[in-house]
C-alpha cells in the first residue's frame, strides 16, 4: 500500500483544487487505517496528517488513544508529533487522559532536555486536578534543572497547574521564589517568573508585597524592557496596598518616561501610574501635578505627534482609565479625542466612543452627538450580504482549498505594505453601538445633560433614519428583543420617555411619533433599504394613541394605522397599533360641541366602516394579542356604528343635535383618566398594605362546593353567558354613558392587580384557575370574588378600592388619593443621584435652560436607597449568573481558584485545617478511583490488543 507523508498530503491538497472535500475525506480514511498499524513511523505520520487537518476543523478526537500510543514511542520524533497532536486535539472530555499520566511523569524525568520540554509544554493544555496532583512531585525537581530552558518552562507549567489545582503553590511557590531571589539565575528564567508573578499578582497582591524590594531592584537594574513592562503592571496592583511604594516608584518611573526609547515601556509606565492610583496619591503636591502633566502630555503626544495609529489606540485606552477619576485632565484633551471619533479606523473610533461617553457634559453634548450623527448619516449602510465572501461565520469548518497561485504563498514574510487604503464602510455593530451610545449619553441621569429637548427629538427621528436593519427575529426571541437590542425599539423608548417626562415638549414628541407613523412619509423617515428602525413604531404607535389629542393630523394618522401595509407589521407592533386605533378614533369622534349634522354622520360612518374593514381580517390573526384586541375593538366599532346610524341628525343650520353619547362619552371614557407617569422600579413594593386587607379569611367558605358546582355546569349556561356578555353591559353603555361607567371600567381587576394584590398573586396563579374562572362566570352579576369583602353584602355590589376612590372623588378621578400615586419629590431624602440632577437642571446658573423633567416616582423618603436596593433585587439573580461556569467567556482561563490560597509563608507552620484534611482525603479517594480506572482501561486495552493481534494473524 502506498502511504502518504504529510508533504504528500499537502501537495495533494493543492493539486485537488475543487475537490478538496473528497480528497480530505479519503485521506482521513487512509489515516484511520495507517494509525492502526504496528509500524510506529506509519502511526506517527498518520497522526501528523490528522493534526494538520484538525487545524481546518476536521475532528480527530477519535484518535486520542493512538496519540497515547505514539507518545510512548522511545523516538523523540514520534513523541514530538504525539505531544503536538495531544495539545491540538485533546478536549476537556477526552477520556484517555488519565492513561497519559505515567507517560507524562516518565518524560518529565527524562535525562534529555528536549524530551522534558515536551510534557512541560503540553501539560498546560491537558491538565486536570487529579493529574496535577500526581505530576506535581515530578515537576518540582525540574525547577533546579541545569538547563535554564527547562527551568523557565517548568515555572510556567507549575503556574498552569496551580490554576486547576491551587495546592500546587504550597510546595512550588517557595522554590519559585528562591529562583526569583537568586541574582545568578538566568535572566530568561527570572523574566518567566516575573511573567507568572504578574499573572498571580492581581489575584492576591498582598502575598507579593514582601517581594517588592527584589522586584524593585529588577525594575531598576535589569535593563530588560519586556520584564520591566510586566513589573510595572505588577506594581500597579501592589501600590494600592502599600502607599509607601509610590514614593519609591515615582522617581524610576518618571525617569523611564523621560528617557526610554521603547514606546511600549513608556506607555506601560504611564498606564501603571494611572492604574496604580499613583496620580491620586500624589494629587495636590507639586510633584503630583508634574507627574500628571507629564503623563497626559506624553499621551497627547502619542495621539498627535507620532501619527501612529497604534499609539493613538493605546493612548485612548489610557485616557479611558483616567477619565473616571480625573475627568478634567481628559477634558483638556477633548480636541484630539474628538478627532478620533472620526478616525477612519474602526478600532480607534470604538475606543474614542467609549471614552466620550464618560466625557460628556451639558456643554459638549450637542457637539459630540452632532459628530456621531454626521458620521452615521454620511456613511452608507453596509449590510452583511454586501460581502458574502467574508460571511463565513456559520460554516462548520474551513475547507483548505488549493491555492490558485503558488507564488502568493512564496512571498516572503518580510513585510511590504499593502496598497489598498480605502476606509471600510461602517459595520453594522459599530452603527448600533454608536446609536446606543448616543442614547446613553443623552439620557444619562434622567436627561440632565440635555438643555434643548426639541433638539433631542430631532436627533431621535434622525437616528431612526440611520438605523441598520435588524435580522428577522423569530417569534420566540421577540420578547428578548429589548435585551438583544433592536435599536429601533431603544430609540422609540427614548421618544416615549421624553414625551412622558418632559411635558413641555410632549407636543413635539407626539408630532415626531406622528410623522413616523404616517405611511406616506415612511420613505423619508426610515432607511431606504432593510427594515432598520421599524422597532420605533411600537412606541410611536403608542404615543399617537395615548396623546391623540396632541395630533395635528389625526386623519392621516388614522389612515396610516389602518393602512393595508400595517397588516405586514410584526404582531407586537400590530397589537400596539390596534390599541392606538380606538384612541385616535375617539379623539376624532368625541367632539360634543358640534352638532350631529348629516355630514358629520356620514363622515363618522365612513370612518367606522374603514376601521371595521381593517379589523375584520385581524380577528383571526395568529398573534393572540392582536386577535384579542381586534375582536374587542371590532365589537366596539360595530356598536358605535349602530349607535351612529341610529341617532337622527338635525337639519343643518338649525338647532343643536346631540351626537350619540357612545361616541362623545363612552368611548373617550375608556381611554381618559389617569395620566401615565414614570414610576421608579421598586415603588410598587413600597405601596403600604391597607390595614383592613385581610388575606387570611377565606373569601368564600364554600369555595370548594362552588368549584364543584362549576365543574358540573353545562354548555347551556355558558352560551347564556356569551349572550349576556354581549348584551347587558353594552346596553347600559348606550343608555347611561356616564363617567361612572368609565370608573367602573377601572375596577376591572386586571388593570391594577399587582400593586394591591401582590400577596394574592400566588392565589391568582392557582393551578385550578380554569375551574375558578368558571365559578366567576357563574357569579357574573357580582364582582370579582377577590375583591369582595366578606363582610359586605354581596347583593349591593362589591366595591374595589380603586373604584371606591373614584366614586368618593365626586365622579372625578382623583389620582392623588390612589395610594400608588401618592408620591412627592419633597419627600425625597438626600440622594446623590436624584438631587444632583435636580439641582443641575434647576440651577440658577442657567435659568433659560430649565426644563422640567419628571423623575421616577416612588414612595417613602430614601429614593437612592430604594432605587439601589430594588435594582439590586431585580438585578441580583443575573449577577449570580455572572461568575457561573456556563457564562464564562470563551478562551477564559479561570484563575479564581488562586484567590483562596495564601502564599504568605509567615504563617508557615501551615497546620492542616480540617478542610485541608478532608480535601486531601477526597483527593486520595479520587486518585484511587482514577488508578482503578486506569487499571481497568489497561486491561481493556490489552484485551483489545490481543483481539486485534488474533485478527491480524487470521
Amino acid at each position, binding site marked *: 500500500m502506498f502511504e502518504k507523508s*504529510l508533504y504528500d498530503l499537502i501537495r495533494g491538497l493543492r493539486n485537488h483544487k475543487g475537490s478538496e472535500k473528497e480528497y480530505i475525506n479519503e485521506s482521513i480514511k487512509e489515516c484511520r487505517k495507517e494509525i492502526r498499524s504496528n509500524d510506529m513511523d506509519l502511526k506517527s505520520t498518520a497522526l*501528523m496528517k490528522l493534526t*494538520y487537518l484538525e*487545524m481546518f*476543523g476536521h475532528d480527530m*478526537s477519535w484518535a486520542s488513544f493512538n496519540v497515547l500510543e505514539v507518545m510512548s514511542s522511545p523516538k*523523540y520524533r514520534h513523541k*514530538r508529533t504525539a505531544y503536538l497532536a495531544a495539545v491540538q486535539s485533546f478536549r476537556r472530555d477526552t477520556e484517555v487522559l488519565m492513561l497519559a499520566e505515567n507517560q507524562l511523569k516518565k518524560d518529565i524525568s527524562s535525562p534529555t*532536555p*528536549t524530551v522534558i520540554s515536551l510534557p512541560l*509544554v503540553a501539560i498546560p*493544555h491537558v491538565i486536570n486536578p487529579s493529574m496535577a496532583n500526581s505530576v506535581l512531585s515530578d515537576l518540582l525537581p525540574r525547577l533546579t534543572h541545569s538547563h535554564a*530552558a527547562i527551568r523557565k518552562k517548568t515555572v510556567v*507549567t507549575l503556574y498552569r497547574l496551580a490554576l486547576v489545582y491551587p495546592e500546587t503553590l504550597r510546595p512550588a511557590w517557595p522554590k519559585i521564589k528562591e529562583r526569583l531571589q537568586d541574582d545568578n539565575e538566568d535572566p*530568561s528564567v527570572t523574566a*518567566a517568573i516575573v*511573567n507568572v508573578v504578574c*499573572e498571580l499578582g*492581581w489575584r492576591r497582591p498582598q502575598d507579593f508585597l514582601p517581594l517588592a524590594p527584589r522586584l524593585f531592584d529588577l525594575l531598576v537594574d535589569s535593563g530588560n*524592557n*519586556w520584564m520591566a513592562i510586566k513589573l510595572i*503592571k505588577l506594581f500597579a*496592583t501592589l501600590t494600592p496596598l502599600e502607599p509607601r511604594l509610590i514614593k519609591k516608584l515615582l522617581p524610576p518611573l518618571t525617569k523611564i518616561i523621560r528617557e526610554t526609547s*521603547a*514606546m*511600549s515601556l513608556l*506607555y506601560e509606565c504611564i498606564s501603571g501610574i494611572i*492604574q496604580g492610583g499613583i496620580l491620586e496619591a500624589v494629587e495636590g503636591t507639586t510633584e503630583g501635578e508634574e507627574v500628571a502633566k507629564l503623563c497626559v502630555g506624553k499621551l497627547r503626544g502619542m495621539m498627535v505627534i507620532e501619527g501612529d495609529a*497604534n499609539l*493613538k489606540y*493605546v493612548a485612548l485606552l489610557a485616557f*479611558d482609565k483616567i477619565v473616571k477619576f480625573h475627568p478634567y485632565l481628559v477634558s483638556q484633551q477633548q480636541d484630539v479625542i474628538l478627532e478620533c471619533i472620526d478616525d*477612519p*479606523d474602526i*478600532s480607534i473610533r*470604538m475606543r474614542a466612543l*467609549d471614552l466620550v461617553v464618560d466625557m460628556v457634559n451639558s456643554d459638549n453634548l450637542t457637539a459630540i452627538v452632532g459628530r456621531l450623527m454626521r458620521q452615521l448619516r454620511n456613511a452608507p449602510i453596509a449590510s452583511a450580504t454586501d460581502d458574502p465572501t467574508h*460571511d463565513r*461565520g456559520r460554516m462548520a*469548518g*474551513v475547507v483548505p*482549498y488549493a491555492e490558485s497561485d503558488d507564488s502568493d504563498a*512564496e*512571498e*516572503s*514574510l*518580510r*513585510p511590504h505594505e*499593502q496598497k*489598498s*487604503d480605502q476606509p471600510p464602510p461602517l*459595520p453594522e455593530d459599530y452603527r448600533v453601538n454608536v446609536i446606543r451610545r448616543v442614547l446613553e449619553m443623552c439620557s444619562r441621569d434622567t436627561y440632565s445633560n440635555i438643555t434643548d429637548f426639541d433638539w433631542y427629538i430631532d436627533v431621535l427621528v434622525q437616528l431612526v433614519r440611520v438605523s441598520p436593519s435588524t435580522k428577522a427575529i423569530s417569534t420566540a426571541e421577540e420578547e428578548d428583543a429589548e435585551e438583544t437590542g433592536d435599536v429601533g425599539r431603544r430609540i422609540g423608548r427614548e421618544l416615549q420617555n421624553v414625551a412622558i417626562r418632559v411635558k413641555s415638549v410632549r407636543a413635539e414628541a407626539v408630532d415626531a411619533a406622528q410623522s413616523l407613523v404616517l405611511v406616506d412619509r415612511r420613505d423619508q423617515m426610515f432607511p431606504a433599504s432593510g427594515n432598520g428602525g421599524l422597532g420605533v413604531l411600537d412606541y410611536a404607535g403608542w404615543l399617537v394613541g395615548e396623546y391623540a389629542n396632541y395630533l395635528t393630523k389625526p386623519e392621516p394618522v388614522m389612515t396610516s394605522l389602518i393602512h393595508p401595509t400595517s397588516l405586514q407589521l410584526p404582531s407586537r407592533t400590530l397589537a400596539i397599533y390596534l390599541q392606538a386605533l380606538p384612541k385616535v378614533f375617539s379623539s376624532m369622534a368625541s367632539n360634543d360641541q358640534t352638532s350631529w349634522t348629516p355630514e358629520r354622520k356620514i363622515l363618522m360612518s365612513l370612518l367606522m366602516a374603514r376601521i371595521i374593514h381593517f379589523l375584520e381580517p385581524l380577528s383571526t390573526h395568529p398573534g393572540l394579542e392582536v386577535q384579542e384586541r381586534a375582536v374587542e375593538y371590532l365589537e366596539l366599532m360595530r356598536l358605535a356604528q349602530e349607535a351612529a346610524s341610529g341617532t337622527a341628525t338635525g337639519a343643518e343650520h338649525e338647532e343643536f343635535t346631540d351626537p350619540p353619547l357612545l361616541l362623545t362619552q363612552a368611548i373617550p371614557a375608556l381611554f381618559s383618566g389617569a395620566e401615565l407617569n414614570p414610576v421608579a422600579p421598586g415603588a410598587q413594593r413600597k405601596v403600604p398594605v391597607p390595614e383592613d386587607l385581610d388575606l387570611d379569611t377565606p373569601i368564600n367558605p364554600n369555595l370548594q362546593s362552588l368549584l364543584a358546582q362549576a365543574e358540573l355546569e353545562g354548555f347551556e349556561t355558558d352560551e347564556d353567558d356569551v349572550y349576556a356578555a354581549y348584551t347587558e353591559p353594552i346596553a347600559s353603555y348606550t343608555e347611561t354613558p356616564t363617567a361612572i361607567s368609565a370608573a367602573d371600567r377601572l375596577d376591572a381587576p386586571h388593570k391594577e392587580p399587582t400593586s394591591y394584590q401582590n400577596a394574592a398573586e400566588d392565589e391568582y396563579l392557582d393551578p385550578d384557575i380554569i375551574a375558578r374562572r368558571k365559578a366567576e362566570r357563574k357569579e357574573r352579576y357580582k364582582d370579582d370574588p377577590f375583591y369582595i369583602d366578606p363582610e359586605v353584602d354581596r347583593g349591593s355590589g362589591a366595591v374595589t378600592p380603586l373604584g371606591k376612590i373614584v366614586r368618593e372623588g365626586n365622579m372625578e378621578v382623583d389620582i392623588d388619593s390612589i395610594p400608588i400615586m401618592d408620591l412627592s419629590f419633597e419627600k425625597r431624602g438626600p440622594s446623590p443621584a436624584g438631587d444632583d440632577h435636580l439641582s443641575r437642571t434647576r440651577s440658577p446658573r442657567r435659568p433659560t435652560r430649565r426644563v422640567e423633567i419628571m423623575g421616577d416616582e416612588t414612595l417613602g423618603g430614601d429614593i437612592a436607597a430604594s432605587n439601589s436596593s430594588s435594582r439590586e433585587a431585580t438585578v441580583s439573580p443575573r449577577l449570580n449568573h455572572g461568575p457561573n461556569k456556563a*457564562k*464564562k*467567556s*470563551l*478562551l*477564559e*482561563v479561570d484563575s*479564581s481558584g488562586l484567590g483562596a490560597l495564601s502564599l504568605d509563608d509567615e504563617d508557615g507552620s501551615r497546620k492542616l485545617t480540617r478542610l485541608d484534611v478532608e480535601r486531601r482525603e477526597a483527593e486520595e479517594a479520587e486518585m484511587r478511583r482514577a488508578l482503578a480506572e486506569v487499571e481497568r482501561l489497561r486491561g481493556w486495552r490489552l484485551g483489545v490488543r490481543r483481539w486485534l493481534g488474533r485478527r491480524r494473524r487470521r
Partner: protein
Amino acid sequence: MINAVLVFNNAGQPRLTKFYTQLETSVQQRLISEIFTLVANRPNSACNFLPLPPLLANSSKSSTPTTPHNDTPSLVTYRHYATLYFIVISTSTESPLALLDLIQVFVQALDGLFENVCELDLIFNFETLHATLAEMIVGGVVVETHLDKVIEGVKAQGTVAKRPVNEGKGGMGFAGFGRGDGGVWAGR
C-alpha cells in the same frame, strides 16, 4: 496572559492555531473566521488592534477592554506580513505594544530558521512552526523574547527541514522588517 495565537493567510486559511484553553474544534473555526472577517476589512493604515469578535464580545458583555485585570480575553492584536496574518488574543495583563513586538520576534525567529521565510515554509513545516511558538509561549505565558534563544531552542530539537526543492521559491529581496523597524516601540 495569552489566550490564543493564530496564523492565517490572506484568504483566511489557517496556518497555525494554538489555543491555550481547551475549545471545541467547531468553536475554534468560528472564532478564526470571525477574526478573519474583522481583520480582512482593515486598511493598512489602521491600527493593529481589533475590536473583540462577536464570539468573545458576547461573553464579556461589554466591548471595553479596559476593565482592569481579569481572566477574560480583552485584546486582539494582529500583524500582517505579506500573505499572512498573525493574531494574538490576550487578557489585560499583557501590554498591547509589547505583544506587537512579540509577534515581530516570532516572525523574526521563523525568518532566522527558514532563511527568508514565506508562507510555503510554514505550510510544509507546521511542526517547526509549533515548536518555535512553544519556545516563546508556554501555556499562555511568555517564556522567551530573546531571538537567539528561541532559534537555539528550536534547533536543539533537530534540524529544521528545508522547503521542498520542487516547490520553488521566487527570489525575494526585502530589506528589513516593516513597521517595527527603527524600534519605535521596540520593547527589547
